[in-house]
């Protein structure tokens, strides 16, 4: 059974190769080839999952060694895969949601003449993402990490004829590069510290390593996670990444790739457990991003950007949980999985709405769509209820668990983190209700598009609605299913470890507080967007609203501090180079040149003047000798 692991990756990789190399001959069937191979991978995943379930909890780690990649002295890089409960969870999420989104894209991309290439890229993404979660060492993980970055770049810029999409793709690529640098430094540090970068040796020797080293590795891993998972301060690319086709936003920028950072932190749990400072940094990043993303989500009128803010915020929850250590690892992954369901569902719903509304993304130009798109309305609505944590839906269980874990951190930190998580829950309820009300309720605010076509909202084709329905079912039941008998906890515990913190307040109180936050958030949103009609042109808004519309000035900050700062730095470096470095070099050259010019006058060609210098030299030598003797 171990031998099947490589096939998980091979299937979508084959799909990518066939679709991208095959050319136009495959245009007619390309999308079905892609969907078929992605589904093959999912079925293989299910087979492996069944195999794992048949074993004892302790023996659920399978490895498959393919070949030694780089054998150089002590530097040994293997292509080895590791399938344990953690990677299994990811495999099922990636291939499951991935297959559904392949199916959805068949309908969504129907009128795009480059659909075959789109599916090639999607398959390439699946292969890279599976490599990322199945790798048994950090170097191989890095290959997958870069692979998903590449796929993300290609897919964000899929409509490359739009300058905005091309720019967004470049932005995502560049910002990710900063994080990737963190990962590569972390791998180098691991190699110098542990002499290896395979999971086994690295994660089992954290006890006998200096804490400073581990903190450095942890912080570098956190930087990597920040880049890939769009956490503060490397969050600026995610909003622009929404330029990509909506299925891409659903799969890569909501359900799977952006959660790779959480995977990295949870996978490296042993390092973080032994480095409390790095762990604290993780929680701080998570807590800040949680609020940051939520505030951005509140102000955006672009439905996809509002959801992108929400994604950022929800991943903030996961990172926060992952930073709590063994109290939170399991809940981070649990929220990751449930989030994968409902956020992918929400994005697919948004895509369906856009599909029916001539690709309009401004929610102020929606309204009253519930009767025109009943299936989209219901599935989106269920995803909405799940994300705000409506009782007994997925988000309720996973988010509640994270809030409890935050309080259970104990001490002042626990209170602060728990408070932030609660506040985040209230804001989540607010902005999601806002999206819901502006899109599906209220008056029609439809506007004709640039060519003057009135929108005729209609329900999307079956290939699109079926994935939405499946994801909605997942959004409703996944949390309850995981929660029942602490199934998810027992499943992941052997890999991540788990400990119960001691919470200063009872679980029931926290649940109650969460529900109060939920009601308050929904209530405020209702008062502002449900009771009153929504203006088609956005009002000026408060200072905070205006800042949030500009992504809380993150681009301005980057521009002023990094771009301008970089320009000033390079200019001053150029100045120093021109004056100081060139001055020294040119000065030396000019000095030598001038001196030589003087010296060459000595060469006048007169034999007698040479004789003078000879005699003079001899006389000097004699004089010196005499002088030395006298002394």
């Amino acid at each position, binding site marked *: 059974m171990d031998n099947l692991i490589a096939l998980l990756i091979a299937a979508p990789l084959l799909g990518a190769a066939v679709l991208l190399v095959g050319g136009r001959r495959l245009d007619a069937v390309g999308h079905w080839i892609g969907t078929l191979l992605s589904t093959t991978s999912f079925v293989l995943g299910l087979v492996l999952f069944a195999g794992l379930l048949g074993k004892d909890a302790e023996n659920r780690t399978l490895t498959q060694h393919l070949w030694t990649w780089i054998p150089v002295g002590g530097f040994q890089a293997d292509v080895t895969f590791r399938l344990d409960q953690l990677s299994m969870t990811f495999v099922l999420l990636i291939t499951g949601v991935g297959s559904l989104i392949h199916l959805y894209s068949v309908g969504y991309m129907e009128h795009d003449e480059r659909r075959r290439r789109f599916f090639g890229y999607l398959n390439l993404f699946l292969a890279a993402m599976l490599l990322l979660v199945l790798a048994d060492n950090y170097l191989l993980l890095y290959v997958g990490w870069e692979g998903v970055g590449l796929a993300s770049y290609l897919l964000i810029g899929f409509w490359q004829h739009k300058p905005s999409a091309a720019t967004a793709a470049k932005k995502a690529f560049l910002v990710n590069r900063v994080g990737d640098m963190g990962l590569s430094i972390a791998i180098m540090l691991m190699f110098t510290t542990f002499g290896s970068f395979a999971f086994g040796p690295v994660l089992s020797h954290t006890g006998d390593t200096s804490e400073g080293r581990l903190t450095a590795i942890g912080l570098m891993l956190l930087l990597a996670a920040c880049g890939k998972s769009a956490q503060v301060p490397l969050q600026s690319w995610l909003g622009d990444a929404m330029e990509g086709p909506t299925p891409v936003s659903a799969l890569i920028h909501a359900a799977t790739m952006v959660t790779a950072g959480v995977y990295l932190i949870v996978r490296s749990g042993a390092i973080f457990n032994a480095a409390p400072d790095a762990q604290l940094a993780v929680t701080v990043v998570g807590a800040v991003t949680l609020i940051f993303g939520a505030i951005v989500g509140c102000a955006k009128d672009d439905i996809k950007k509002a959801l992108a803010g929400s994604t950022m915020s929800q991943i903030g929850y996961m990172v926060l949980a992952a930073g709590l250590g063994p109290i939170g690892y399991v809940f981070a992954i649990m929220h990751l999985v449930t989030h994968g369901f409902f956020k992918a569902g929400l994005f697919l719903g948004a895509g369906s709405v856009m599909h029916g509304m001539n690709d309009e993304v401004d929610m102020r130009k929606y309204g009253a769509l519930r009767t025109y798109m009943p299936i989209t309305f219901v599935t989106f609505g269920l995803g909405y209820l799940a994300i705000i944590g409506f009782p007994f839906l997925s988000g309720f269980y996973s988010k509640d668990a994270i809030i409890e874990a935050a309080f259970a951190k104990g001490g002042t930190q626990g209170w602060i983190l728990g408070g932030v998580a609660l506040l985040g829950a209230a804001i989540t309820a607010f902005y999601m209700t806002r999206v819901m009300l502006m899109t599906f309720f209220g008056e029609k605010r439809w506007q004709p598009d640039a060519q003057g076509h009135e929108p005729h909202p209609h329900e999307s084709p079956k290939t699109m609605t079926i994935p939405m329905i499946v994801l909605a079912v997942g959004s409703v039941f996944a949390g309850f299913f995981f929660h029942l008998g602490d199934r998810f906890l027992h499943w992941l515990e052997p890999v991540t470890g788990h400990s119960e913190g001691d919470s200063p307040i009872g679980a029931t109180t926290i649940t109650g507080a969460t529900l109060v936050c939920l009601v308050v958030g929904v209530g405020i949103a209702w008062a502002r967007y449900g009771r009153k009609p929504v203006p088609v042109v956005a009002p000026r808004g408060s200072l905070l609203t205006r800042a949030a519309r500009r992504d809380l000035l993150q681009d301005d900050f980057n521009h002023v501090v990094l771009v301008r700062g970089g320009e000033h730095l390079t200019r001053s470096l150029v100045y120093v180079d021109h004056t100081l470095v060139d001055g020294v070099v040119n000065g030396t050259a000019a000095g030598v040149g001038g001196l030589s010019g003087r010296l*060459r006058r000595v*060469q*006048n*060609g*007169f*034999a*007698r003047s040479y*004789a*003078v210098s000879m*005699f003079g030299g001899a006389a000097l030598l004699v004089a010196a000798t005499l002088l030395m003797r006298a002394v």
Partner: protein
Amino acid sequence: MNPVNYLYLAALLFTIGATGVLIRRNAIVVFMCVELMLNACNLAFVVFSRMHGNLDGQIIAFFTMVVAAAEVVVGLAIIVSLFRTRHSASVDDASLMKL
């Protein structure tokens, strides 16, 4: 007689030779002045040989004479060919080797 006097003579001859090399332009005269300096050295060698009571200096004087003879052969040949090309034996006229 005090041998140091011979040294004074050698120094005097050497100085005359050196001065001649420096101030005369005719290559033949310069050449003769060089010979004068060589012979001054020979005289000094012989005197030192006498003062130290061994034969090293005298042997070296023979070597110098051989070298001087060889030098005369080469030197005169150069002067003759120089005179042929330039119709002058002045050392200052042969001043092309400069920058």
